[in-house]
């Protein structure tokens, strides 16, 4: 801490900050452009000028760029000084000399940092009388719109895209007032994080192209805090609606989870909500029926049936719990494959019973060594890939500190670090985008990856069994990895379910535990397949096979399947047989899929945007998402449908519940692993000064006209029985509790930059603490019970391929792939990735067809060659249309 005199007032500030950060942390309004809280300063825009004084007698002072000067104790500065103010106004005047007269047609307008800063400095008229320089734009693909005329040369975009996120296809071109930010030629932006450009760029150069297709100003959106549903990391998002359709997803700052960024799957995957094929009406035997009727019919069906319920890893814990309560504990099954089920349970066991804690994304960023086993993070858990990118810089950054360069001085830091990376080891099935950071990489079949893990763990702690007959070169590799990890302070080991191999996960746990035994502050991250995989696993319930058997053996005849396409989790033949055997298949769903086609009764469930719920992310953090808008009367949360069914059926347990809160309380009481979930948001009775928190900004427009075409008398706005958010613009305007911030806004700060005002300190936690509750912590005194079974070395079989999944950020996840923009980025054909050596042996080439038989089904796939995939292994894209619906890994028999 240091004392800083700002305009003669003493303030306590963080001495690690620069002056700009110190001022902003204190809540002062100081304009800036090029500094970014996650990326530091470069001093490019000259907007943040303030005065510094030698001592209290110095009346003149000198102008400096506040973002480039560290805080020193007893320093005297002035923000309000007239000269500094005039300077800032001039600077913005210069930045605007070439700015187009575009606000009316600019998507940034209303949430534009440049607008805000211009108003803040008071610049109003363009003094420059000459012509404006112009630029042509580029087509950057389905996600991002480019309007280069609006650029103010702050360099944030290129610093984010290239330096922070490791993108290769974006840069700054030309010189002086002609500088140009874009790609070397038109084309799709390759980075998985390109969407953040829309938020990082303080102007309307980069904007969300999907928003443009149904453009709405920020002030016109009905917004709610939500959680991304497209992978297991649980990034916090803001979702905005207008005229009954979901319009955009923005980042919602969370100090521990996603920070300032989200990935493109999360940002652009939302349009499945608006998809024309959505389930919007109850359907019974092909006939659309009403809400009351369908409930009556179901009540009749359930009375005479033996019912089982199949839950879902992408439905909230509330929905899964309600289903479990409706059908009874013993009739509730997880709708996931055997291996998914077992791996999720294994993960919980490892994280609870082992001594090593799972770090949050933020903590991963500061780990100084990384060991990845079997995960292609960029594709399976994108934001984790971004976090380990930062982790790779931690050790070189220690040198930076020694050289007396402050961490926030980004240009100097990057100059100093160059492309040095800390210890970064990656063992994956085939090449990944993170390989460029890796000091050691190893491509192998899952069992061999696990063997490497065991070998490394053994070298760290000899209590772990060694790998017998390990080849010399691999021994050396394991030595190097072990010594690299041992030289670090807080290494992180990352594994997960995408290789669908329990042995890999066990090996990862061994490595982390071994490091722990050597007094390292080790972390272990295990990623999951879906947004609530862990939550489902924590609730207990049978495996999917159990459900199949129950029906096939006649113990049950009716299945309620909730938000789940069984064909994604079980093998085609079994699922088919199961669905045929069921007398009644009742499906609650929002998005059409193969299982839905076999349903007798379809009930329209709400997507995340139309629902309240909670998810447990891979870290074991319970997080709440709020309903963004009330859908038509028929679409409802699955849990609400189930609740109604339960009440109709006279289920005593369920009859006590009325709303979201009651269910959540019941979960907290009855589910051993989910204690405390009822405390993560304030209750629905919560009010500030008697008021709710409004979902709409106070400038929300059109409410007396938008429905006037239907009826000139406005309807009463819906009331929210499940939370203390309101569906109107009226309510409390100050800071909302951190777990229920519907949007970031502060007077004079209309863009996302207003998040500064919501934080305890720049880049730190939100005021009131970062939301969510971590449910999994190692039990105190837990000791490492090393896994001791070393797997056998992988042996290829002639005319067979060991089939494994490979994940695609765009295409593998069930919901986001229905978003038209994401669909444009998916692989066009299902393929089989094999090694060229195997291809040569089989006499096939890239693009040829190859056929496999898996569980008596023949699949014809296109050959894709990859030099890194081990011989005898074929990787198939997970979740793509036309892919085998079967449990992998497994052997595929080659057909000629």
């Amino acid at each position, binding site marked *: 801490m240091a004392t800083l005199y700002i305009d003669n007032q003493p303030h306590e500030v963080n001495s690690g900050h620069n002056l700009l950060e110190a001022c902003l942390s204190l809540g002062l309004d100081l304009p800036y452009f090029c500094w970014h809280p996650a990326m530091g300063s470069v001093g490019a825009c000259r907007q943040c000028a303030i005065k510094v004084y030698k001592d209290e007698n110095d009346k003149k002072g000198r102008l400096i760029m506040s973002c480039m000067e560290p805080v020193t104790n007893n320093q005297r500065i002035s923000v309000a000084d007239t000269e500094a103010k005039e300077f800032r106004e001039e600077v913005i005047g210069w930045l605007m000399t070439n700015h*187009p007269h575009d606000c*009316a*047609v600019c998507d940034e307008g209303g949430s534009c940092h440049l607008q805000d800063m211009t108003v803040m400095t008071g610049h109003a008229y363009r003094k420059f009388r000459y012509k404006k320089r112009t*630029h042509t734009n580029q087509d950057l693909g389905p996600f991002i719109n480019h309007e280069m005329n609006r650029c103010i040369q702050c360099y944030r975009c290129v610093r984010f895209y290239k330096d922070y996120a490791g993108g290769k296809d974006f840069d700054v071109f030309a010189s002086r007032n002609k500088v140009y930010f874009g790609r070397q030629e038109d084309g799709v932006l390759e980075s998985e994080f390109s969407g953040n450009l829309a938020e990082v760029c303080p102007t309307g150069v980069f904007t969300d192209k999907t928003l443009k297709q149904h453009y709405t100003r920020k*002030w016109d959106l009905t917004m709610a805090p939500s959680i991304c549903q497209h992978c297991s990391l649980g990034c916090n998002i803001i979702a905005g609606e207008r005229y009954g359709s979901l319009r955009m997803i923005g980042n919602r700052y969370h100090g521990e989870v996603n920070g300032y960024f989200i990935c493109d799957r999360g940002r652009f995957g939302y349009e499945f909500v608006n998809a024309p094929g959505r389930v919007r009406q109850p359907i019974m035997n092909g006939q659309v029926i009403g809400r009351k009727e369908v409930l009556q019919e179901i009540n009749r069906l359930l009375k005479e049936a033996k019912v089982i319920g199949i839950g879902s890893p992408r439905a909230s814990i509330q929905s899964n719990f309600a289903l479990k309560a409706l059908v009874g504990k013993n009739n509730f099954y997880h709708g996931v494959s055997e291996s998914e089920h077992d791996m999720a349970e294994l993960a919980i066991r490892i994280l609870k019973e082992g001594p090593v804690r799972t770090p949050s994304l933020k903590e991963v960023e500061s780990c100084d060594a990384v060991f990845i086993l079997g995960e292609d993070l960029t594709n399976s858990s994108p934001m984790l890939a971004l976090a380990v990118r930062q982790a790779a810089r931690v050790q070189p950054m220690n040198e930076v500190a020694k050289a007396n360069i402050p961490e926030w001085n980004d240009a100097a830091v990057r100059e100093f670090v160059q492309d040095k990376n800390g210890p970064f080891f990656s063992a994956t099935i085939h090449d990944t985008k993170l390989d460029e950071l890796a000091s050691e990489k190893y491509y192998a079949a899952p069992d061999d990856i696990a063997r490497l893990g065991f070998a490394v763990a053994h070298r760290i702690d000899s209590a772990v069994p060694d790998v017998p007959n390990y080849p010399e070169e691999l021994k050396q590799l394991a030595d190097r990895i072990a010594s690299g990890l041992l030289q670090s302070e807080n290494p992180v080991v990352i594994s997960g379910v995408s290789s669908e191999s329990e042995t890999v996960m066990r090996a990862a746990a061994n490595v982390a535990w071994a490091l722990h035994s050597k007094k390292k502050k080790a972390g272990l991250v295990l990623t999951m397949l879906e947004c609530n995989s862990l939550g489902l696993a924590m609730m207990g319930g049978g495996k999917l096979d159990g459900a199949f058997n129950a029906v096939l053996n006649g113990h049950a005849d009716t299945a309620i399947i909730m938000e789940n396409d069984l064909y994604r989790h079980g093998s085609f033949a079994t699922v088919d047989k199961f669905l045929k055997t069921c007398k009644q298949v009742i499906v609650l769903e929002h998005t059409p899929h193969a299982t839905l086609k076999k349903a007798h009764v379809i009930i329209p469930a709400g997507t995340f945007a139309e629902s309240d719920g909670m998810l447990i992310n891979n870290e074991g953090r319970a997080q709440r998402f709020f309903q963004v808008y009330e859908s038509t009367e028929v679409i409802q949360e699955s849990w609400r449908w189930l609740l109604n069914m339960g009440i109709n059926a006279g289920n005593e347990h369920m009859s006590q519940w009325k709303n979201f809160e009651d269910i959540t309380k019941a979960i907290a009481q009855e589910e051993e692993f989910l204690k405390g979930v009822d405390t993560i948001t304030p209750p629905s009775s919560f009010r500030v000064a008697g008021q709710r928190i409004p979902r709409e900004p106070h400038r929300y*427009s059109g409410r*007396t*006209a938008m429905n006037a075409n239907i009826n*000139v008398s406005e309807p009463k706005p819906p009331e929210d029985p499940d939370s203390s958010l309101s569906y109107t613009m009226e309510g409390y305007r100050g800071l909302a509790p951190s777990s229920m911030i519907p949007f970031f806004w502060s007077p004079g700060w209309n863009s996302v930059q207003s998040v500064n005002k919501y934080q305890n300190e720049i880049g730190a936690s939100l005021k009131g603490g970062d939301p969510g509750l971590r449910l999994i912590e190692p039990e105190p005194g837990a000791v490492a019970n090393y896994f001791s079974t070393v797997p056998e070395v992988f042996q290829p079989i002639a005319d067979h391929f060991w089939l494994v999944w490979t994940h695609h950020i765009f295409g593998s996840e069930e919901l986001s792939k229905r978003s038209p923009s994401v669909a444009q980025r998916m692989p066009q054909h299902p393929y089989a990735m094999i090694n060229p050596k195997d291809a040569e042996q089989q006499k096939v080439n890239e693009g040829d067809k190859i056929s496999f038989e898996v569980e008596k089904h023949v699949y014809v796939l296109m050959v894709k060659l990859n030099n890194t995939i081990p011989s005898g292994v074929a990787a198939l894209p997970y979740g793509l249309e036309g892919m085998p619906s079967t449990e992998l890994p497994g052997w595929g028999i080659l057909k000629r």
Partner: protein
Amino acid sequence: MFSIIRSMWLTFLHAFHKRETIQYPEQKVKLPARWRGRIVLTRDPDMGERCVGCYLCAAACPVDCISLQATEDENGRRYPEFFRINFSRCIFCGYCEEACPTYAIQLIPDFEMGEFDRQNLVYEKNDLLINGQGKYPGYNYYKVAGLAIGGKGKGEAENEEQPVDIKSLMP
């Protein structure tokens, strides 16, 4: 006493003053050009729709009676997909006109909008859009904006240089 007589006298004199009452509707009212009555959407000099769907009028409206949806044609020109004003709510304050950066929305001297059915006071774009420029002739927003639209490329707006050639080696 005197004041009563005085008042009666003055009132009596009014009988000989010029009549202020107009025999409306037989006789029409003369309104100044800036009188704030019925709202129209105007066109620019080359008859394109002026409204660019910026939502500023809607945000400025104190009774929130304007609602629209912006969209764009295949050449990037923005316009409102629908534009609705609920005149049963409108207070004719003229804020929308003031907010409009394109002179699209204008209040004109016409108040004859009475209806028996309130529903008929809901005007859609069809009812609002006129075939003229209204009070501000000559202004064409797209001629001064940097956005390229059909018929106007980059560098072709007023006061613009030709687009930069970023591959040029000249300093």
